[in-house]
């Protein structure tokens, strides 16, 4: 990698915030409904109090803009922010830039939870799926952490995060297998389950935004407040402890809040991959390795990235729609290879 002086923290964060605003502006003016841009602009201005602008949109177009397009943009930004900051957080915890937000059984647990809800709990109504995905995601991380702790106590790899990471992979495989077993029992719901697994923001509503906001707020606040601790972890457990930091406690707090953030995201969007790897990596390239900068930069970058990805998802094939998980994978997989190219050996 070429030597590069990282830009100033405030400038980078300001640029990232501008990126989010730009992405949202692009997104609000395009869509399958082909709303008149001038009418959209006036309608938006009309929402500003005391400005006295009157919306030129019909009731239906207004519903498209305010009930479908806007909540979708806001939810996309929230989910993207959560996924990216979670990925960055996990990368700090595991000192490995290739860890994603869905690791540690989070995605697999959410998938199993959603599948169980779709197959067995359909009678409770569609609203049960996000709750089940949220619960499953947290349960997945809890089981992986427990398995990691048992492995660390008895195993030969020691108490390092590597044991936990491996336990997470094993638990993830197990949960995915369990999901397949459940799915085999009820093949009529294959389409529903796979649609969910591919991720989608098409059901976005203000209701969902409000529902995940508390979890998102708490978890993101906790993660951001631990950026400095993640920096200390980067010199290894021994030196971190010699500096007066308890690495296990920091890891537990960071993993807990990352799990909460990922669960909130997955509950409303299904599984969206690669955001948690690509965005923090770009942040690191721009700002250097310090999590004090990487975390907020990932938060904003993830928000902007997912808003743009979702804009593509709902316009490239318009009036049909691409699953957003497919869009992030189409962009993310090649970018992931680029990440690998620029990644040095890691020492977890």
């Amino acid at each position, binding site marked *: 990698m070429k030597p590069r002086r990282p830009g100033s923290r405030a400038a980078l964060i300001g640029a990232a915030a501008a990126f989010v605003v730009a992405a949202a502006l692009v997104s609000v003016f395009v869509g399958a409904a082909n709303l008149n841009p001038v009418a959209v602009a006036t309608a938006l201005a009309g929402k500003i109090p005391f400005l006295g602008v009157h919306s030129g949109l019909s009731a239906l177009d207004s519903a498209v803009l305010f*009930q479908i397009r806007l909540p979708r943009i806001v939810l996309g930004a929230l989910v993207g922010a959560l996924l990216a900051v979670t990925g960055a957080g996990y990368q700090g915890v595991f000192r490995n830039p290739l860890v994603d937000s869905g690791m540690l059984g989070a995605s697999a647990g959410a998938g199993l939870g959603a599948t169980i809800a779709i197959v067995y709990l359909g009678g409770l109504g*569609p609203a049960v799926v996000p709750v089940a995905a949220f619960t499953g995601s947290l349960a997945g991380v809890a089981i992986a952490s427990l398995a990691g702790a048992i492995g660390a106590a008895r195993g030969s790899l020691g108490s390092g995060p590597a044991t936990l990471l491996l336990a997470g992979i094993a638990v993830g495989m197990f949960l995915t297998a369990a999901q397949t077993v459940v799915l085999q029992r009820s093949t009529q719901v294959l389409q529903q389950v796979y649609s969910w697994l591919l991720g989608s923001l*098409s059901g976005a509503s203000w209701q969902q935004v409000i529902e995940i906001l508390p979890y998102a707020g708490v978890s993101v606040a906790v993660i951001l407040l631990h950026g400095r601790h993640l920096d200390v972890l980067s010199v290894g457990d021994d030196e971190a402890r010699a500096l007066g930091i308890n690495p296990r406690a920091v890891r537990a707090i960071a993993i807990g809040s990352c799990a909460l953030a990922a669960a909130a995201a997955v509950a409303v969007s299904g599984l969206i991959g690669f955001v948690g790897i690509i965005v923090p990596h770009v942040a690191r390239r721009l700002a250097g390795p310090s999590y004090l900068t990487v975390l907020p930069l990932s938060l904003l970058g993830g928000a902007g990235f997912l808003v743009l990805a979702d804009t593509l998802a709902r316009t490239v094939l318009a009036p049909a729609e691409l699953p957003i998980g497919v869009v992030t994978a189409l962009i993310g997989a090649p970018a992931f290879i680029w990440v690998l190219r620029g990644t040095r050996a890691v020492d977890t």
Partner: protein
Amino acid sequence: MKPLTSAASAVLAACALTALAACGSSGSSSQPSAQPASPAPGGGPATSSATPAVAQFPVTISAPGGPVTIKAQPARIVSLSPTATEDLFAVGAGKQVVAVDLSSNYPSGVPKTSLNGVTPNVEAVAGYHPSLVVTDQDANGLVAGMKKLGVPVLVEPAAASIDEAYAQITQIGQATGHLASAQDVVAGMRANIAADLAKAGTAHSDLSYFWEVSANPYYSATSKTFAGSIAAMFGLKNIADAAAKAADGGYPQLTPEYILSAKPQIIFLTDNQATDGGQTPAVVAARPGWPAIPAVKNHEVIAMNDDVAARWGPRLPLLVAEIAAAVESAAGK
């Protein structure tokens, strides 16, 4: 198979899980070549009278997957497809059916087992000592496996058109020794459907509809699909047609924005039951922005019988009747 699973196959293809997408239903390559039923002597629902069958065997069925020869009237039939189960019971072969798969639930009292039609287990099927197996897809080496045991397998994939559905019923009647009553069933279906079409009218190009296969994301069915072709008989305009791409097999994913701005006057829900999505008309009315759609405003959101809407067997007239009722109601507004 059902449109649900076909839409799934488009999704699955996207994530390269093609192994699970064994259920092609776009159907252009699978025209059943059995003779369509000869003109029926009269209307009215078919009676499943026992048909003298001995003379009909051995019989060779020109099934979509190739000819299948059945040496004698099968005494023990296993059905691995809900549509085939309905067909079998409708033509009067119900007494010969010893086991049906876990998704078969009509008519009531079918011998339901844990057999899985999508991922069948050859040994489990063989355990019922069938003399004929009827299914809608050859998965997990079912046909080859049963061939080793000398058991014929009749594969009747999801019908792509109403004539294919008639042909399948006739073939199943032929294969089980109930050809005449199968022909009666088909004639009855034709008569019922013709009556509904006549009553509701076939020139409703001013009415547009949205056929909801699943929600979040929203999958629909175009006029090229089986369900769409039924709606097209009434002249209805399908809002998904403009969104269709070659790759989606007639089941495009639509953005909610598009659905709203297309202003459909009727919405047909085939995902309203607890087992397949629970998207009831009340849930639809609560979706953000949807109350602005004419269909929602005018209470023309129809909760279909999801099974009837996705199985193209003897209950087809029910599907037509549901659509006819909706058309009459919407046209009156």
